[in-house]
């Protein structure tokens, strides 16, 4: 791919999604955009770049952005954050929200739904303790296409094996031909909507728990900072933010700090020092 074509497409994607594509990602750009070119009856990536330059086709620009921002995801990805959610966050919230009986969770880059549904399955396992509670899980993603897939909840055989214990498959999925569909019960626990994290969030909060994993890595530092500040603005003092393993808040914002002894969990800087001690130790 020609350098000026790469720069053109990278600029388009950056503008629309915030995703920063460096030159070493050229192979990723090529492998993901060849199918897009085919879909739009364009011969190759030269043609695709030319179409972007000349026609300003909105549909094409959207398709390119979505193809570049669809990330790998699977059920209980990395396992640890879900263990932390179940063992530390949930017991705290059950106590701290006992009067209000409500819990709001946001999966900020929901992709095809695995993260939000994993959280829903954990909450379904704890249903006895959540009787009479109003639990909202919101899943958002830039791509309307993947959000539709998330809502339908169909997964192939590979997708239901990586990360998902077979006991969970037996309990929460229904087989339909070659596909597996997550149960109506779990689907009804999650609301999905297409939303660009760089644009208006349309009064989406507040949230007690935010999963925003492996999203910031794609943004430049000023965008990361802005994103973290906006998330902080949606949280009570004992809210929690989960980031990906390669992400941190240091040097980006002073609104969050690491939860002591818990890698990957961040809490508002205003959170009292002892708020999490009791449950984390328990």
């Amino acid at each position: 791919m020609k350098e000026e074509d790469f720069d053109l497409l990278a600029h388009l994607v950056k503008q629309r999604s915030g995703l920063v594509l460096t030159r070493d990602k050229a192979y990723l750009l090529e492998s993901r955009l060849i199918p897009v070119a085919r879909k739009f009856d364009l011969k190759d990536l030269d043609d695709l770049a030319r179409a972007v330059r000349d026609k300003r086709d909105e549909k094409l620009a959207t398709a390119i952005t979505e193809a570049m921002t669809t990330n790998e995801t699977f059920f209980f990805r990395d396992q640890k954050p879900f263990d932390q959610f179940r063992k530390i966050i949930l017991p705290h919230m059950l106590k701290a929200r006992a009067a209000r009986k409500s819990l709001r969770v946001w999966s900020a880059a929901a992709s095809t739904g695995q993260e939000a549904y994993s959280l829903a399955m954990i909450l379904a396992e704890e249903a006895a303790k959540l009787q009479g509670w109003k639990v909202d899980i919101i899943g958002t993603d830039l791509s309307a296409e993947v959000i539709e897939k998330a809502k339908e909840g169909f997964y192939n055989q590979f997708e239901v094996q990586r990360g998902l214990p077979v006991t969970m498959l037996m309990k929460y999925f229904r087989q339909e031909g070659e596909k597996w569909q997550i149960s109506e019960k779990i689907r009804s626990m999650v609301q999905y909507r297409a939303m660009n994290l760089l644009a208006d969030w349309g009064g989406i909060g507040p949230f007690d728990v935010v999963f925003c994993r492996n999203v910031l890595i794609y943004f430049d530092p000023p965008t990361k900072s802005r994103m973290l500040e906006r998330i902080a603005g949606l949280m009570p003092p004992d809210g929690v933010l989960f980031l990906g393993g390669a992400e941190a808040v240091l040097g980006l914002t002073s609104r969050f700090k690491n939860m002591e002894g818990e890698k990957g969990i961040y809490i508002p800087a205003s959170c009292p020092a002892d708020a999490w001690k009791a449950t984390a130790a328990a």
Partner: protein
Amino acid sequence: MAGKSCLIVEDSRVVRKVARTIMTGFQYECREAENGQLAVEECEKAMPDVVLLDWNMPVMNGLDFLHKLRSMPGGDAPKVIFCTTENEMSRIQEGMGAGADEYIMKPFDGDIIRSKLEMLGLIEEGG
């Protein structure tokens, strides 16, 4: 610390080889058996830590082997992961009901096996 051991029970030599390569990558010492009967004999010699178990095999199938294993002295200990083309929900229920610990629907790859080993606490996360 003693090495971890794995018994691969599978009638296809090609699949055994793939499974062995993957498990060796996770520092498992591997033995192989091409049917359930030979697998019982291997378990009588020494119980493995993990069994990767095919379902459909000549002589003795995986399900019969599993019943046999769980009735042997020390036969509760090995973690058994079915690894089979049987991908119907009813089969999965049958296999798990017979005492398997996990279930892999073929085709599998290293990521799926790693993921299942992690779930069973047999290897460290990301290990």
